[in-house]
């Protein structure tokens, strides 16, 4: 079984950081698990935490007045859920729910934010890496706006 240090060091979002940077990040991390159906985050909550999913899957849901919530994305093992901890107003935009048993690493985003203010090299690294996550989500959202299944086929 991998140690928390190894899981974090090998994850795409933290891969290649210096040993000192990794040690600080590991100090802000803890293993967590969520049962199927458990709500992890509610939209509007303070975004002081983000998660690296190690096993299972979580869903991002958006409440729609007078309708059932819309499931707008799922995040699977190996991916990170949560970028709002890095960008004001540090508030979750969606509900996050475990759709199955989830094992994850939870990071203290508030702690990391403070560190990024004083350690600009780490701040730059993290912002660059989370920008990639944001761009990926933006592109996926734009592709979905294309309604790629909407045109006629045979």
């Amino acid at each position: 079984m991998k140690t928390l240090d190894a899981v974090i060091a090998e994850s795409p979002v933290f891969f290649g950081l210096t040993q000192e940077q990794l040690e600080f990040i590991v100090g802000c991390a803890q293993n967590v698990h969520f049962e199927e159906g458990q709500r992890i985050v509610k939209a509007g909550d303070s975004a002081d935490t983000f998660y690296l999913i190690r096993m299972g899957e979580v869903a991002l849901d958006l409440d729609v007045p007078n309708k059932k919530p819309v499931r707008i994305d799922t995040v699977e093992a190996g991916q990170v859920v949560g970028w709002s901890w890095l960008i004001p107003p540090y508030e979750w935009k969606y509900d996050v729910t475990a759709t199955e048993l989830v094992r994850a690493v939870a990071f203290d985003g508030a702690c990391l934010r403070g560190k990024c203010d004083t350690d600009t090299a780490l701040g730059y690294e993290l912002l660059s890496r989370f920008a990639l996550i944001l761009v990926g989500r933006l592109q996926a959202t734009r592709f979905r706006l294309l309604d790629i299944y909407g045109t006629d086929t045979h």
Partner: protein
Amino acid sequence: MAQTLTETAGSLEAMTPVPYAVTAKRQDTYDTWTLELEPQNGAPIVPGPGQFNMLYAFGVGEVPISNAGNFDTDERLVHTIRAVGAVTKALCAAEVGTVIGVRGPFGNTWPIEDAKGKDVVIVAGGIGLPPLRPAIYHVLKNRKDYGRFVLLYGARTPSDMVFLDEVKSWQCNYDVDLDLIVDAGDTDWKGKVGLVTKLIPPAEFDADDARGFIVGPEIMMKFVAQELINRDLPAESIYVSLERTMRCGVGLCGHCQVGPTIVCRDGAVYTWAEVENLLAVKEL
């Protein structure tokens, strides 16, 4: 060996609709129906996987519709049709007992023989599943002849998925790596949410010895093909089915011409290597 009338250009047989009666009808989504057809006279035609027929709503017009039947066992023709224009709306409105005209089968087939011994990766988008259904059934029936079988199916919403119960039964009854994804779901949806391309990186197959079959709108096939190439599956091993306005079915009229190729005669199944550059040309 599947029949094809494409090579009989100009013959009476290729150009004359044969009367078929609608023997069963099922609504798949809000705008999509599946019709089962039996000939009123003579033996039924037997389209191969990937081939299409021209269906004629008498007095309205004729459209090309892919074969969706299980060609290994079905004696009836099965066609899944989305009601988008006058002819497809007329076909979808046809009740059991209605007689429509059928010409075909036309075009080439999925290379299911060439895929034997290899992993098979099938990616369908929306109503793109029915044209792949005959190939899927062939692989399932001859499961031991193929390697891993990966089936990835994406749609706009769960209610836009066709043959969903059947797809889930394949996963239960056969050795199939099935993954489903929708652009947007609700909290009852248990599958993934996002683009169908998201399913490709984690899919388990041997890119050195696999064949990929893709059907969906061209923009979806483009993204999927690129993602398969990112997994090192060569463009020559990726097959797509092109949708064009086939009219004659035998390569005479030119309505379905894409650059140097006539889709009804040379396709509709092509390797991605053959059509990637053609589909990048806006005017085509």
